């Protein structure tokens, strides 16, 4: 498995798009900077700024979309250049292949959210919108790491669909549908979609103003994510098994 992960890193050489995509981590912190600059407020509650910069659109839209794109990128070349048959006769285990891709998505998600956290601190503390406090920074980093890990798991269905397809258009459509479904399902039922489950977990204890639920059911949120994850792995295993 480690060998597969190591090889996955080797495959990413000269993929500049991967680095460019990381710039998306600055988008919401920058918008938060503009927004609070426009309001002209200083010494605002840190969680309020971080809700804008990290716990809002970054969680629901940007990071899932970036991870969906990454999943497609990781798998598309191998499909396009008909490389899988060369990998299978090495032999590479199909489940190992799937999890090595997931591991890259997971690490990328961590990097993305660490950059997002750093950008959030920079854009909030330097213009003095938020007072510099280790507690609030620790809270931000902790939740960002949680978002990173959980969103990587939430990207499993997209990864599973991507490995089951030869093209990239269908996985891309599924990515968009999946993300927007999460966005729209959340107000109806927060435990149906992995992305809404993440919002339940992240906003636990009313820590994030505005997206706190009345009675958050954390076990149910984790259970829902597990069901989605298991179903995705099963789909990937079945479809990879069928693919030659």
């Amino acid at each position, binding site marked *: 498995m480690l060998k597969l992960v190591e*090889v996955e890193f080797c495959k990413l050489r000269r993929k500049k798009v991967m680095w460019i995509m990381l710039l998306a981590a600055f988008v919401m912190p920058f918008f938060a900077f503009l927004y609070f600059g426009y309001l002209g407020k200083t010494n605002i509650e840190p969680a309020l700024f971080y809700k804008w910069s990290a716990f809002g659109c970054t969680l629901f839209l940007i990071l899932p979309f970036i991870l969906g794109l990454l999943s497609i990128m990781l798998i598309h070349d191998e499909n396009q250049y008909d490389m899988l048959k*060369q990998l299978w006769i090495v032999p590479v285990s199909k489940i190992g292949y799937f999890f090595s891709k997931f591991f890259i998505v997971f690490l990328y998600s961590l990097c993305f959210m660490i950059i997002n956290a750093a950008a959030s601190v920079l854009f909030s503390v330097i213009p003095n919108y938020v007072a510099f406090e280790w507690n609030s920074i620790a809270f931000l980093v902790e939740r960002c790491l949680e978002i990173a890990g959980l969103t990587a798991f939430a990207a499993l269905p997209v990864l599973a669909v991507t490995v089951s397809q030869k093209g990239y258009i269908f996985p891309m459509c599924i990515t968009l549908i999946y993300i927007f479904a999460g966005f729209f399902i959340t107000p109806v039922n927060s435990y149906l979609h992995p992305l809404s489950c993440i919002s339940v977990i992240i906003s636990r204890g009313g820590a994030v103003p505005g997206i706190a639920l009345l009675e958050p059911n954390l076990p149910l949120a984790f259970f829902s994510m597990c069901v989605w994850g298991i179903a995705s792995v099963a789909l990937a295993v079945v479809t990879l098994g069928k693919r030659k």
Partner: protein
Amino acid sequence: MSDRIIETKQLTKKYGNQTVVNSVNLHVKKGHIYGLLGRNGAGKTTIMKMILGLTSITSGSAEVFGKNIKGNEKRIYPRIGAMIEAPGFYPNLTGTENLEIFAKLRGTSAPDAVKKALEVVGLPYRDKKIFSKYSLGMKQRLGIANAILHDPEVLILDEPTNGLDPIGIAQMREFIKKLSTENGKTILISSHILSEIALLADDIGIIDKGVLLEESSMKELEKKNRKYILLQVSDVPKTILILERRFQVKDYSVQDEQTVRIYDTELNMGEINKVLVMEAIAVLSSGICNDTLEDYFRKITGGEGIA
């Protein structure tokens, strides 16, 4: 253990109602080069894919080293090097980087395995050119380098000379021959180019429309190809009349308006020439010939030729 490294029994592949490979019994002997010859779409690649377990078998079986690949992948694959169809590699990586990936995945222990494999196929080591910029011939060479990277006992090469220039084809032929004669590798090679197979293979399987029409050694095949006297004359009907009446020739065939083949090679060619000239028939050429492999292929496939 049998000396057959690859063996298929009644190997069949169907896509819906279409049978693309029909009850193929193939036998590849240890240390031999087996040439699978057939036109495009004859089913060569499908047979190779079924042997490698890359496509499902509808019925029959395919065994490598006496075992079915399914369930024995970890034991059998490391002993096989294969290149099926156009070789695919990561477009953003150089040839060396691509091979290093496969060397890592295979756990190739030799530190200079990549360098050696590239040297063998004539590609530069640590070149900066990325795979997407490679020519078709370079891609093909890299595919072969990948197949031999881990020093496998068996090589399965699907049309390995596709896209190579004439010098490259000759080099590849020499290299494949060397692998078999000097290193004792067993090689299953497919091609639609008859001359390639004729120059390379120890054994040959002729496949047409998914059916293995003939399987024999090249030596046997050469024996089977009949010798004949080829006559090129100005008047074929008159020549035939003379051959039948004066020489009692019955086994002959008319090729065209000027050419006759006589399959009784015991006849005195000098006498035939003399009689024909005396009968005012111009003898343009005469001599003893052998059927070429192409003629043979044409004959057993029902008149359709090959490249």
